[in-house]
């Protein structure tokens, strides 16, 4: 709102379309992450998953490195790779009882390693026009990536609202001991949440490659922090049990709007980062304001 007053360029169709485009990848990743955080876990493997997925997608679609040409199947493979990483996260976390932040950090590093091997010193370029058009093409003046993101939000909301996995996520995140006593198979649902998050990160990596036209190890740089921030700003508690997919949509929009608005208003780049941080702290404090009186443990 403030940005609308300060810049006449902000509230234009072109800029709102730009914000939607800039939100799309972040949103897909954040929707997946929401389920893990709802359960009280965290997924720090997203950048590594994005890196591997981006390499896999580009190397399986038409590219300048080999003769593969699997078209959109390559994108599915990217999502599948993400799902496998998620499965590994979930199984290691639940079976070996290692804290999720440690497991996912390690698995993320494995992802970076695999991507580095596939990278072999040079970024392969995505030559498949069909796949590429998803990143550059538009429908109704909006980037096609925005429609992918909206589709994922719908799926995410559906899972959260209408499936057992979604409802149990709140129970487990709220109080794991009670959930266990009620006979809920906690490992199963936790693993599922990591698979969802991994698949979303896999799709995020694929989307980044569609947009930039390359497979790159660094394609997810900075995304993990932004993703977690989007989920938390939206109002999902890091301790689990509260929040949801629609909250995350708001959080992701806030982050993209901030980055966009500060540039349009003409804030000096030297102070933008601090300003962004300050606004995020204020936003998180404001969303949690009504909860502050209860006896709540902050972890």
């Amino acid at each position, binding site marked *: 709102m403030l940005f609308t007053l300060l*810049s006449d*360029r902000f509230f*234009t169709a*072109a*800029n709102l379309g*730009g914000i939607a*485009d*800039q939100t799309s990848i972040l949103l897909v990743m954040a929707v997946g992450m929401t389920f893990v955080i709802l359960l009280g876990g965290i997924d720090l493997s997203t950048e590594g998953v994005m890196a591997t997925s981006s390499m896999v997608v580009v190397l399986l679609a038409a590219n300048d490195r080999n003769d593969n040409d699997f078209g959109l199947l390559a994108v599915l493979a990217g999502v599948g790779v993400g799902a496998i990483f998620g499965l590994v996260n979930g199984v290691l976390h639940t079976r070996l009882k290692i804290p999720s932040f440690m497991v996912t950090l390690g698995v993320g590093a494995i992802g970076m390693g695999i*991507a*580095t091997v596939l*990278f072999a*010193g*040079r*970024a392969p*370029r995505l030559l498949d026009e069909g796949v590429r058009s998803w990143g*550059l093409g538009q429908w109704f003046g909006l*980037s096609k990536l925005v429609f992918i993101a909206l589709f994922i939000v719908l799926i995410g909301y559906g899972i959260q609202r209408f499936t057992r996995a979604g409802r149990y996520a709140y129970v487990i995140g709220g109080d794991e001991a009670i959930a266990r006593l009620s006979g809920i198979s906690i490992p199963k649902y936790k693993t599922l949440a990591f698979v969802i998050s991994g698949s979303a990160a896999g799709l995020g990596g694929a989307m*980044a490659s569609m*947009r*930039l*036209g*390359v497979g*790159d*190890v*660094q*394609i997810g*740089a*900075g*995304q993990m922090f932004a993703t977690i921030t989007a989920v938390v700003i939206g109002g999902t508690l890091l301790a689990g049990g509260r929040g949801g997919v629609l909250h995350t949509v708001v959080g992701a929009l806030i982050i993209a709007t901030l*980055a*966009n608005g500060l*540039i*349009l208003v*003409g804030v000096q*780049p*030297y102070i*933008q980062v601090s300003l962004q941080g300050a606004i995020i702290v204020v936003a998180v404090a404001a969303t949690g304001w009504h909860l502050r009186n209860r006896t709540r443990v902050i972890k």
Partner: protein
Amino acid sequence: MSAVAVFAALSLAACSSGDGGSDGAATGTPDGDSGDDVQLVLAIRSLSNPYHANWVEGAEIFAESVDKDLTVLSDDGDSQKQLSQIRSLIASGQTIALNVDPNTSSDTQAIVRAVTDAGGYVVTQWNKPDDLLPPDVGDNWVSHISFDGDESGYQIATALFEEMGGEGGIIALQGILDNVPAQQRFAGLQRALEEYPDIELLDDQTAQWDRNTGYSVTQTLLTKHGEDVQGIWAANDNMALGALEALKAAGRGGGEVPIVGVDAVPEALDEISSGENGYLATVTTDAWWQGGAPLALAYQAAIGEYDVADASDEQRAFYGTQFLVTQDNVDEHMSAPTAEELQPDLDDPFLRSVGPIE
């Protein structure tokens, strides 16, 4: 025969044995002039970027020319890991000839002191503290080589302004704002702007050296300034390539808006070569040379062929030559030089010095 031993050292930061000191080990003098016990070492950030991959190729050309093995240390941008890898190698007792790209300026001192204490020889590149020069530490810090960011920022800016006919609006994508090369390159842009009064800098923003950020920042700036944007100056190729995709997405691709960057990453070279999307120019420091020639210098010092004590100030710290790459000369910079082409620079690593670093 490619003789690269990739030394995948685990990060043993916890067990690094105190701070070197002058413990018993030979200080200063190599054991002999034959070079038999000198180990060639290249320490770089990662094998996953083409720039450092080219360093490795250049270093391999040198290693083969003197018929020795090359050890490559890759630290993934982790300063602690870089230092502990180098320490572990030194602990093996061989004299090392090290060519290193320190992660940050503050790492440089720790690295050169560790090598000096063990009697090895090191040439550093890019990063060092401003007030510290190799003679301050001793003869084992053979030389420091860097490249003048002011010059590269200026060269691409003038190439861009000439293409624009000397007038119009541009936007600038800066690197991470507290990085020295980012500041130098931007200063170069400003120097060029003074010479072209009809070019207007509409906006400058940081895109963190990153392609994705380059995309979204450019997208926003194109909305803000619309048709006024007649050219894009980026402090590195990654951001420029992101900007190029943002232009395509905004329906202004296809060469309508010329773009320039720095670093000569392979995709930028491909774009310059094809000329389809308006990618005009980049600057290369010649990564093959950076991998090979400084390693040759450290090796020559280690075997006593080059006497550091007699070196001039310029030889102890100098700026290397950079090349502006445009469509005219892009082919020369797209593939590794042959051993014959690189040999004169390996024999005399100072051939490309353009002046001392003060």
